[in-house]
């Protein structure tokens, strides 16, 4: 025991050195976090800027489709023209960022949520069918020179589908489903959103359905005669016309 005591002088120094080393490492880690925290901060600001540009691009695609589907003489170049204007105006809205936005519009047949859409400058509507739809599509490439970001790609799709499920001429009721992008059902439609050609709508009600999630029943005044044509507008102003049978 005495021998052990005599030989244990240096152990305290080693333990102290180890603890001091541990403390230095800990302080180093804390200091590193403190220094690098604000270094990464601007990226969050730039991410919100990118988010804003993406939302604006989606809104522009939706707006162009709404214009295209509501126009008496629709021009398929409306999306192309709006995009060209937006590309120029963006530098005035976001000065100093060095934002440049390029867009590619598809042309020809494409599969869109199970249906075939034949695009012309990124726009298409297929109406007067039981399952009708309107669609717009654009792929964007974003460069932000102030942060050295180049080639940031994203796609914006605006889509509205109206399907007439059944028409009951005895009760003058039309059952329809309305879906948007990714085949998501639309919940908030009311009587103002629908029109039935040649008939006045007396009531529109919605109910849950196992297969379609949301089903709308359009009750018309008077007697319904086939064929029936139904028009729908969603909150974005996009229009679809479906016909049964």
């Amino acid at each position, binding site marked *: 025991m005495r021998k052990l005591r005599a030989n244990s002088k240096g152990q305290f120094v080693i333990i102290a050195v180890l603890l001091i080393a541990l*403390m230095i490492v800990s302080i180093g880690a804390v200091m590193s976090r403190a220094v690098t925290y604000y270094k990464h*901060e601007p990226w969050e600001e730039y991410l919100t800027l990118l988010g804003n540009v993406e939302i604006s691009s989606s809104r522009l695609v939706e707006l162009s489709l709404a214009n295209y589907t509501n126009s008496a003489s629709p021009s398929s170049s409306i999306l192309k023209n709006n995009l060209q204007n937006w590309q120029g105006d963006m530098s005035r809205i976001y000065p100093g960022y060095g934002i440049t936005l390029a867009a590619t519009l598809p042309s020809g047949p494409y599969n869109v949520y199970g249906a075939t859409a034949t695009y012309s400058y990124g726009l298409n509507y297929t109406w007067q069918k039981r399952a009708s739809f309107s669609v717009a599509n654009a792929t964007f490439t974003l460069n932000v020179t102030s942060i050295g970001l180049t080639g940031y790609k994203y796609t914006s799709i605006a889509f509205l589908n109206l399907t007439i499920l059944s028409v009951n001429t005895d009760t003058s009721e039309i059952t329809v489903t309305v879906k948007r992008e990714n085949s998501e059902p639309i919940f908030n439609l009311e009587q103002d959103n629908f029109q039935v050609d040649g008939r006045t709508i007396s009531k529109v009600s919605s109910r849950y359905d196992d297969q379609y999630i949301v089903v709308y029943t359009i009750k018309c005044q008077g007697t319904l005669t086939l064929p029936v044509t139904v028009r729908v507008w969603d909150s974005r102003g996009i229009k679809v016309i479906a016909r049964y049978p």
Partner: protein
Amino acid sequence: MTKKNGNKGQIRVIETILASFFIMFALTFANIFAALPTSPRYEATELQKLGFNVLQDLDEKGLLPRFVYNNEWDNLRAALRVTLSADTHFNLTVYDLDGEKVNDVSIFYGDYQTFAASKNIASVSYGLVGYPVQVGGSYQAVYEPRTLILQLTRG
């Protein structure tokens, strides 16, 4: 006696270790509970992020274009007041592409003096492309960009 002198150094080392532990414990404790004031150097950046996020959130919900294109300035002010914290003062101005001010009513919250005296005012620029307006039984969807300039400061 020689043995007693030999142990002196060891006691000092133990004291140092214990003192170090106390200091580390105190620092950790203070770090956990301390509410440090935001550095003025980064305050403008924080407010800028906040402003961007608030406008983007309202835009995603579809409220911002509705308020701006239907001239619902009071609703826009109320939405910003609800979304931002009570100590955040703001001044929002809406311009068209020619730089003409669109909002005829002031969209402002807070104290004018605080705004004028503040050294940290963040400014956020946000763009809107247009909004479909219901006309009769149809919609008019025209490309009509608006630039929103949101100025923020702490009260």
